[in-house]
């Protein structure tokens, strides 16, 4: 077997193995996943909670974010909101001040220093049992905090992540993100079921305050403080759960350029944080996060390069053959309508397994949609995701890997 075939075999096997691994997890837990949403008076107790809203130039979305927090189904006296302005240069502070008259809201302002510094300023004033963050470009559904508080009834749980969805997609790029985020609703839940949540995302991840007392506040962490915090929790054997009914909406970047910038930051941060926490990798002491989840992320990045290489090679070969043909004999129509021979269909094992992989990815996309939107209906976002995501993702993956290799990550809020 030639080396290229062996590499392809290994990549297919590992890709399929990971999908099967999470599918097994899903079917093992399908009964517990069907629990209905938490009702208003269902909780034994309502722990006091502070939500920190760090913001930098968020004049357009801040009011929606804060209003969604005020509308949460949660006892008023148990919920506090801190708006931290990180030296905005637009009307963000002015808008924040308008909310200050509300007894549950406190506003702080400071010189611009990065998101983690804004979060730490908020943390230094928190005295509640639970504390969380909500990015100022996101907003929450009414029942989100109830869902999360329910999971905190288990004293072992130190942090709970929500189910994040894209709000009102308009551009193609946002529709692609919609499918991607729906898939992540499924994946986050599966990760939590195997104790492998790798990110406590900015939109509405809630922690026990004791976590910060024990482990310290947020760090710069290559501009991905949410991932560093999750890895730090795992490094200290703290449990992170996911509330798959706790829906949070976020505004995805509208253009490819903006999305590319955001994702380069994420993937770069992902790689750098894994380097920082490499002791977790393949270490059974840390469970599935070290054995499956983090290696799977690295594997996905490596295989993206392999597949892009193969695709680019095929495209270049096809184009150069066509150019040679046109140069030699001019334009020739090679396709004949009504002429089909089943011999032209590949019957190699690679073809069947690739098809299986595509179908299982589609199944996961639908599963994510079911979990996020309670619907199996095919939709445009899934089609766009399947067609284009692999290609556009490679753009930021390759850039982020380049940045990591040369340690060229840039400071950026978003």
């Amino acid at each position: 077997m030639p080396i290229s075939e062996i590499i392809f075999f290994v990549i297919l096997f590992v890709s399929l193995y990971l999908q099967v691994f999470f599918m097994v997890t899903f079917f093992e837990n399908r009964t517990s996943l069907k629990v209905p949403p938490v009702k208003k008076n269902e909780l034994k107790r309502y722990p006091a909670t502070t939500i920190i809203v760090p913001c930098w130039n968020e004049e357009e979305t801040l009011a929606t974010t804060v209003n969604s927090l005020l509308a949460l189904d949660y006892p008023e006296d148990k919920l506090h909101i801190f708006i931290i302005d990180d030296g905005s240069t637009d009307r963000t502070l002015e808008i924040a001040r308008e909310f200050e008259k509300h007894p549950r809201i406190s506003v702080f302002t400071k010189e611009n220093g990065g998101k983690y510094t804004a979060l730490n300023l908020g943390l230094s004033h928190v005295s509640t049992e639970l504390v969380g963050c909500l990015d100022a470009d996101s907003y929450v559904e009414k029942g989100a905090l109830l869902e999360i508080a329910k999971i905190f009834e288990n004293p072992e749980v130190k942090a709970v992540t929500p189910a994040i969805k894209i709000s009102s997609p308009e551009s193609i790029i946002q529709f692609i993100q919609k499918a991607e985020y729906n898939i992540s609703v499924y994946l986050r839940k599966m990760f939590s079921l195997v104790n492998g949540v790798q990110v406590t995302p900015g939109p509405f991840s809630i922690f026990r305050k004791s976590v910060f007392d024990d482990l310290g506040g947020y760090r710069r962490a290559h501009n991905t403080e949410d991932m560093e915090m999750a890895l730090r929790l795992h490094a200290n054997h703290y449990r992170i759960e996911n509330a798959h009914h706790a829906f949070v909406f976020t505004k995805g970047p509208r253009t490819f350029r903006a999305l590319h910038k955001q994702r380069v930051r994420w993937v770069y941060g992902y790689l750098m944080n894994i380097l920082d926490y490499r002791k977790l990798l393949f270490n059974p002491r840390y469970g599935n996060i070290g054995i499956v989840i983090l290696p799977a992320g690295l594997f996905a990045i490596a295989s993206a390069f392999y597949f892009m290489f193969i695709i680019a090679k095929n495209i270049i070969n096809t184009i150069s053959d066509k150019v040679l043909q046109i140069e030699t004999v001019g334009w020739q129509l090679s396709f004949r309508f009504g002429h089909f021979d089943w011999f032209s269909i590949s019957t190699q094992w690679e073809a069947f397994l690739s098809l299986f992989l595509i179908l299982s990815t589609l199944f996961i996309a639908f599963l994510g949609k079911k979990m996020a939107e309670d619907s199996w209906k095919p939709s445009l976002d899934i089609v766009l995701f399947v067609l284009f995501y692999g290609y556009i993702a490679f753009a930021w993956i390759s850039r982020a890997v380049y940045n990591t290799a040369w340690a060229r990550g840039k400071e950026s809020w978003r």
Partner: protein
Amino acid sequence: MKAFRWQQYVIAFLITAAIFATAFLVSERLNQVKLDELQATRDEIAIDTLSTETQFSLLAESSCEDIGTPVLSQELNTLASRLSLAENNLGANDADVLRLKKYYSLLLIKDYLLAQEIGQKCGHEPVSILYFYSNEGDCPDCKKEGYVLTALRTTRPQLRVYAFDTNLDLSAINTLKAVLSLKNTLPAIVVDGKAYYGFQSEDALNALLPPPPPPKNATSTATSTATTSTSTET
């Protein structure tokens, strides 16, 4: 809530292995079906060839009309096309594909010889090209020549192109090369017994061939040149 269970790794591994095994088995079975179909086509052509040879042996007692057109039939055309697809699918070095390709080449040589002899005796010289190529990277112009011959097929449907892979390690091909006194330069094209080496453009080949007949006669032997397109473009 589960944390770390070895059983889960094992179950996932077994399911993945089962999926792979199924893919291998289905692939193996379908590939065998393809090869069986190729062999069936080959057998049909072999019978056709034998039939024409027999007819030719009886030529002394038969009229040229009874023999009709030589054997290079739709089946041979299909075999060439499917062999090319099988080469892409199963690999050019697959033992079964190589065996079928050798057999196909033998049938081509037989057809060429028969067509020559029938043509001489019945007085209708077939318009044919013998094309010797390699697709192992040692013939940079072979791909271009393949495009030219494929294009010729569309403008000259009565043209017979017999394409031979010189890397096939088939003694009959080597003998044919020796009979034609061919050098080892590729691509090599033989028209009317004369060899031409290196890339020959469509115009150059048209100049070597007799002018095509009017369109009304152009349909009966339209199958022959398809063998070139597939073999030469691989």
